């Protein structure tokens, strides 16, 4: 059983660090054999990282207009990832694009769960907003629970 945890975001842009921080916490807590990677910037490489995985857990910050600190869980293997997960710009390639590209190529793993943490501030140099830190911890717990259920 190959399991991958991928934390995405930008650790220098306020709450965009949420996925990165969750991955760093999970690295110390996941069972042996579970790969944990962090990805800042574009995520085209995730298509490659997905290859050969049975289950993937992605954690990223999201902006959907919900209450800051809200958590959304999506089963990306079953349906498309909404655009609020994409780093929208003319050269960004976010997790939404990576998942959909893998699906188009027929290489999406059988289970891909995406956790989104609603961010508040994405300003350069800002720290994590007060509402976000507990959400990061909760996602860490939930991902650990899901990984344990696989074992």
């Amino acid at each position, binding site marked *: 059983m190959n399991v991958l945890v991928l934390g995405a975001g930008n650790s220098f842009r306020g709450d965009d660090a949420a996925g990165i921080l969750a991955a760093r916490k999970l690295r110390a807590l996941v069972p042996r054999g579970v790969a944990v990677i962090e*990805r800042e910037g*574009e995520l*085209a490489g995730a298509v490659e990282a997905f290859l050969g995985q049975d289950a993937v857990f992605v954690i990223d910050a999201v*902006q959907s207009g919900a209450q800051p600190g809200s958590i959304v869980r999506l089963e990306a293997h079953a349906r498309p990832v909404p655009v609020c997960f994409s780093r929208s*710009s*003319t*050269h960004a390639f976010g997790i939404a694009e990576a998942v959909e590209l893998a699906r188009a*190529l*027929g290489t999406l793993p059988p289970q891909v769960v995406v956790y989104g943490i609603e961010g508040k501030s994405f300003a350069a140099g800002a720290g994590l907003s007060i509402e976000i830190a507990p959400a990061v911890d909760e996602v860490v717990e939930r991902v650990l629970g899901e990984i344990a259920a696989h074992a």
Partner: protein
Amino acid sequence: MSVKTRTIRVDALARVEGEGALYVKVRGEKVEEVRLKIYEPPRFFEALLRGRAFTEAPDITARICGICPVAYQMSAVHAMEDAAGVTVGGELRALRRLLYCGEWIESHTLHVYLLHAPDFLGYEDAIRMAKDHPEVVKRGLELKKAGNEIVTLVGGREVHPVNVRVGGFYRAPARREMAELGERLKRTRDLALETVRFVARFDFPDFEPDYEFVALRHPSEYPFNEGRLVSNRGLDIDVREYDDHFVEEHVPHSNALHSVLKARGAYCVGPLARYSLNFDRLSPIAQEAARDAGLGPVCRNPFQSIVVRAVEILYACDEALRITGSYEPPERPFVPVAPRDTVGFGCTEAPRGILYHRYRIDAAGSIIYAKIVPPTSQNQKSIEDDLRHFVEARLDLPQDQLTWQCEQAVRNYDPCISCATHFLKLEIDRGET
């Protein structure tokens, strides 16, 4: 990914900071105004650097861009070595070129295959393109992965490389590692050649602005880390003279600074500029591929930048093969660099064009002042000029088609948006109610 969908997204997210936008004001047959708000200059990082050790600049500035961290590291180490009066040569210099090859391959391939090719093949994005042309996208991903492998071996990590230091590297690759990389790169060079042939077949709009191109030029090499700053209008200066000739102007419609040539205004940096000023420095295989793709020694059509990027990918593969083939591990992975109370200058060729760093450091090695001018802030004025002329000649197009072509005109530059502002909104105002 189209701007139409992006617009919807942005409307729902009004509280996002640093929203990027393109606004074109058309009255009758005339484009009255073009305002592009895409780029925040890295002022936060310049402030963060003050008081930090000169040795920290490569790792701190690498965080400015998730796509081109190597470029920031390279401009930073060269500036610090310039301040210290140290020159890094031999295999260490070659390893820096190799690392840069990796970044060009990664960055250009992402743009060519996943962001730019869909425009020419008539797809809204790479995902829809992948459904019809999976073999094309797979080739792009394989090529990009080769760039990742170079960055991982030389840079120490695939993303945000950690192996670069002022004076060289923390660890130099072993001979065996470089030989293995070289073996894999042979296939990569074939993929790059296929890429040039693939993009050469696209249709390009007839559009050739009279740019002032600015790039580095080296006596014998296609430029990565070293050279004089030259242009096709007679500029020929040392990197240390940059601030005598270029100035950043505040733009009323955005937080951005537009960089201009004091004497002449807008200028263009990046693949087109590099290629047009350095065609004679490309390797024979890259020159031949460019000619076969229909390019002359100068290319002024920004839509053909996709072909030029493909030629540069091929050159980077060829150069990486040359470097891995003749590699002898250096005795030490770095040369010692002692700080001096002075100013250091660095300018290297990031995938998107020249990236200028200037630091004032004290005798203890603390950074007193940092200035960073990324390529996108230098190209911003040229992008606006392109849009003005391009739109004016195509005002008879339906709104959606014109909007799409405007997006394409911005995408020609592969502008660095994701690193700074996150949302792009496009609006064409025709004064209709």
